[in-house]
């Protein structure tokens, strides 16, 4: 993990409030594994507001050209500032942070909801690289992520996309992709997306034998395990739980042990 000022190669709008930011960083490209994230300062030079760094999953790394990519949605002031940056601007990035996800199973089912596609995309690439059987289920509200499908296609894996609103893809929510669960017997499932999706998956997969790993999000202050701000309630043992840090003990957790409120 390192703190560095890196140069932006591209920061393109690829949908409504959806951007892809590419930056030059041999270090991140070398060190980053799926599941990890980076922490970006989103205020202008000499500014202190917004104060805290913002966490973003790694979407892709190109080791040949040393370009790392994140995919992000403009939510509030931090991401709005980010979206105004241009090629040639510098950003202050720390990473890679969090624990790498290292799938051991041979067959991998990836489930992404919305912007949750970001870490899932990087994980998919990694799985293909290590010759695993990969299936990807992605769900989006609308056709905003159309250009992301291009990246998915380029992975040359089996996938289905669910979309709530239009004819671009299968109509529905991503959990419908699991209607025939037996098809994914023996698959290790990795998922990332909104809490409602994760809750639905937890319910749906409750009886199943699959291992299910969820990549979680929580508001962060430090990103390096110091402040204890980013905790999730995780079951440990039958009736007990503990608050575990998403940044340094996650972001990957066994979905079946996550206690949503």
């Amino acid at each position, binding site marked *: *993990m390192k*703190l560095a000022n890196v140069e932006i190669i591209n920061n393109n709008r690829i949908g409504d409030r959806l951007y892809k930011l590419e930056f030059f960083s041999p270090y991140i490209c070398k060190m980053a594994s799926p599941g990890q994230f980076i922490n970006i*300062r989103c205020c202008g030079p000499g500014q*202190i*507001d*917004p*104060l*805290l*760094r913002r966490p973003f999953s790694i979407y892709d790394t190109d080791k040949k050209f040393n370009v790392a990519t994140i995919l992000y949605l403009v939510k509030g002031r931090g991401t709005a500032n980010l979206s105004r940056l241009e090629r040639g601007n510098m950003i202050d990035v*720390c990473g890679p942070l969090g624990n790498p996800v290292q799938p051991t199973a041979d067959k991998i089912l990836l489930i992404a909801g919305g912007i949750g596609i970001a870490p899932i995309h990087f994980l998919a690439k990694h799985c293909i690289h290590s010759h695993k059987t990969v299936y990807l289920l992605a769900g989006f509200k609308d056709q905003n992520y159309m250009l992301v499908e291009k990246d998915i296609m380029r992975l040359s894996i089996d996938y289905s996309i669910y979309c709530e609103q239009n004819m671009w893809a299968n109509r529905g929510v991503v959990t419908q992709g699991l209607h025939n669960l037996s098809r994914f017997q023996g698959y290790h499932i990795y998922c990332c997306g909104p809490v409602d999706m994760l809750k639905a998956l937890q319910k749906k997969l409750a009886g199943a034998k699959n291992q299910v790993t969820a990549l979680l999000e*929580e*508001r*962060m*202050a*430090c*990103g*390096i*395990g*110091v*402040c*204890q*701000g*980013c*905790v*999730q*309630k995780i079951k440990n043992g039958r009736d007990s*739980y*503990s*608050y575990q840090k998403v940044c340094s003990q996650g972001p990957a957790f066994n979905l079946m042990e996550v206690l949503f*409120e």
Partner: protein
Amino acid sequence: MSDASAPNLEVVLGDITLSNPVISCSGTFASGIEYGQFYDVGALGAVTTKSFSLQKRQGNPPPRIFETACGMLNSIGLQNEGIDDFLNNHLPVLKERSIRPILSIFGENRTEFEKISAQLTDCCRYIAAVELNLSCPNVEKGGMAFCAFPETVKEVTATVKKMLNIPVIAKLSPNTGRMDLAAEAARDGGASAVSVINTLVGTAFDIHTCRPRLGNVMGGLSGPAIKPVALAHVYKLCVKKIIPVIGMGGIFDWEDAVEFLIAGASAVGIGTANFVDYFAAQKIVDGISRYLKEKNIDHVKKIIGKALH
């Protein structure tokens, strides 16, 4: 810092001597081990640990962090694995790295402070000082913070001081009225210094869900937003010359740190800044040194309290 012309940064707070006035604030630096990945934290004046209690505490439900204008709210709720964890897992690493931390502790009542101290008697020489987090609720007094009751501040301080006979620092809260009385009580109880200020009570709501932004509803405000308030507390204590003060609250760069020093603080604590710039504390040491050099001042003690006269 070996060149002869480098200003002397040593500060003395009663029986505490620090190689420089820059200290990490409790709860914002863990035990310093994580930051050791970035730089030699032994080069700071001191590392203050996260506050430890007698028993493990789960802390507050998430969300625990919310960002506000130039500040942040936290409601960690003093989550920690208990003083045992410090002794078994943190202290050995710190010893190995020759770091003598300021150990922050808290209890729900005087007895708990006593019991924690009892566990520390053997390791006192590995600890630079004990900081008493007196902003935590005193269950014997209906949950109001310890520092709201000067008499209690004095008692607790005296108890710990007597048991350990190492320097004791009282950390005071800005939320409970007369801080001067609490500082006097700490002094009378035998404290070497006070740490000022802990976070301000604050909250925030989501106007769409009408739910609090923090699982615990109330949180503590820190960061640049609170700097003017922290400086006022430090200044008012220092004008009265009650006890040496470790000034903290919103310090983000060396200019902020110098501002606290000239306002009378004998040392400064770096908190939230560590989250934003992992090198913040180290940079602040360097910045203070550069400032002194540029002004041809050979010793940091010469600027402490310069704005008081």
